[in-house]
């Protein structure tokens, strides 16, 4: 029962917030809360990688972008001129393509959103796997720099490739039809529905990660973080476990990218930017590294504030500042700061030094 309590509280809070926006006629907040939920999905995945397994990634915006860009490109690029090609015909027979009409009435043949989403997430997982094999041998700063390099590559590819729309990105991404008649789209009439889809996805993702941490695998990951040599001596295949958790967190980022792209109806290169990766690391740090609830809370609050424009044009600067302040004053996250305990500790130390002197 104790396991379920935080989840129940979270579900209660999600419903309560929606009801409050309904009553107070502030439904427009739901848009940013929906987007914040998707960013949070990436953030909790990163929290498990960084806080529990102890591996940093400054390339998670890259995985987010791989998910988002691939599903956007596949669901928007018209394949009608290739419809004689064997591959396209085979895809059509498998039911992976859908034909529609664009707003001007010409016919469109594109990959179905679910198939595109699946391909995008699998691509992100595969790339994470291939990247992880060499770079996860690195530690600390070296791993941070290698993943940063990866993030820069994804950003520059998105910016340079006409397939991904260069500086304009990709727009007019169609809605993502889900079972039970639900659809991920930015349509105003579906705002409440999408708020619940986003939070539903996030809560499922959270439950899966909580289960993971509280298991044999989670213990092994924490052991790798605390004392890699001892973990290895206990029979933990550290390289394999690090690689798997890296892939899982990349999949979380890619799923977030897929959903948010369909919700926004498009994606641009700024989503792949290095500052985005830094921001995610900053949020995980604020939440307290090995603290999923903290990462979730801070992810929602800070993403929401940023999306509402609270930080104005200083958005990235604020996240840089947050990172510095957190590292200096609360390396275990703001939730670890118990003001009363700090005051008591300071008084105690003063008294000790007085008695000593």
């Amino acid at each position, binding site marked *: 029962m104790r396991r379920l309590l935080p989840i129940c509280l979270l579900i209660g809070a999600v419903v309560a917030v929606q009801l409050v926006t309904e009553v107070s006629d502030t439904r427009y907040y739901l848009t940013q809360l929906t987007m914040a939920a998707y960013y949070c999905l990436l953030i909790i995945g990163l929290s498990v990688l960084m806080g529990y397994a102890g591996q940093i990634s400054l390339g998670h915006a890259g995985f987010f972008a791989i998910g988002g860009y691939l599903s956007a490109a596949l669901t928007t690029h018209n394949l009608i001129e290739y419809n004689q090609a064997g591959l396209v015909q085979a895809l059509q027979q498998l039911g992976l393509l859908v034909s529609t009409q664009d707003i001007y009435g010409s016919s469109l043949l594109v990959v179905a959103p679910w198939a595109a989403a699946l391909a995008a997430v699998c691509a992100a997982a595969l790339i994470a796997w291939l990247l992880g094999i060499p770079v996860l041998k690195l530690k600390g700063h070296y791993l941070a720099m290698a993943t940063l390099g990866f993030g820069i590559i994804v950003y520059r590819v998105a910016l340079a490739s006409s397939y991904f729309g260069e500086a304009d990105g990709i727009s007019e991404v169609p809605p993502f039809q889900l079972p039970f008649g639900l659809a991920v789209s930015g349509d105003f009439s579906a705002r409440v529905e999408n708020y619940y889809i986003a939070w539903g996805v996030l809560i499922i993702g959270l439950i*899966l*990660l909580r*289960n*993971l941490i509280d*298991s*044999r*695998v*989670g*213990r*092994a990951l*924490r*052991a790798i973080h*605390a*004392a890699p*040599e*001892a*973990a*290895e*001596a*206990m*029979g*933990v*295949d*550290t390289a394999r476990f690090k690689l*798997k*958790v890296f892939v*899982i967190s990349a999949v979380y980022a890619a799923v977030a990218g897929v959903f948010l792209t369909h919700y926004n109806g498009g994606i641009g290169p700024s989503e792949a930017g290095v500052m985005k990766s830094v921001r995610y690391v900053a949020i995980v740090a604020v939440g307290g590294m*090995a603290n999923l609830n903290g990462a979730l809370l801070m992810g929602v609050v800070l993403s929401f504030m940023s999306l509402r424009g609270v930080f104005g044009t200083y958005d990235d600067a604020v996240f840089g500042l947050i990172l510095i302040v957190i590292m200096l004053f609360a390396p275990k996250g703001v939730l670890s700061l118990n003001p009363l305990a700090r005051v008591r500790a300071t008084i105690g130390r003063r008294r000790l030094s007085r008695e000593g002197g």
Partner: protein
Amino acid sequence: MALLELRGLHKRFGGLHAVNDVSFGVERGLIKAVIGPNGAGKTTLFNLITGTVPASGGQVLFAESDISRKKPHQIASLGLARTFQNIKLFSDMSVLENVMVGLHVRSRTGFIGSMLRMPAGRREERRLRVQALQLLDRLGLSDFADCEATSLAFGQQRAVELARAMALQPSLLLLDEPAAGLNIYETAEVGRLISSIREQGVTVLLVEHDMSLVMDISDEVVVLSFGKKIAEDVPQSIQQNDEVIRVYLGE
């Protein structure tokens, strides 16, 4: 054949010949000690056996199979557990969780099974908990099960490390200076503990500086000096060995 067999083991670090052509065997059911002055290559020898550092030459055979090229986690899963000279417990984890990591190779739930909390995984989790608690009970640590492991007193941390290694259900246990930093009472306790481990059918190879402990509990002693084996015998004969006395006390 011996449970563990070292054949002409070499390790060079640059110009330093840390382990120089060392060969000996550890028979099943024995307690064997490796002694030698500081820098004799004892810990390096341990690291070669457990695969932590690769050997420059020679062979390590464990239960008749060559483990010289294997990774530490593979060697551990064959039933070779170890403790560390400078205790390496998992910080931010409870004593119970530390011991449960020791059961890693005796369990199998993977990433997907863990994330979905499959019934088989939950059953296994309950089994691991029970087994870990039994082990703690045997070592008199049950009261500390939920304490953070690194918050315990030094002697207790050593005991937790031993419990963690025993959780692996090893056939060979390597102890790197199990009595380092302990007072004489704690040292005597560790000696009793090691003897009781041997009575459970576990073969023990240890590195130790405390001569009284070594002479008390070991069946055989190997002496290293500057990376070379200079003697191998029963404790009584080692104490009479001229070469050993010269190495320890000077000319």
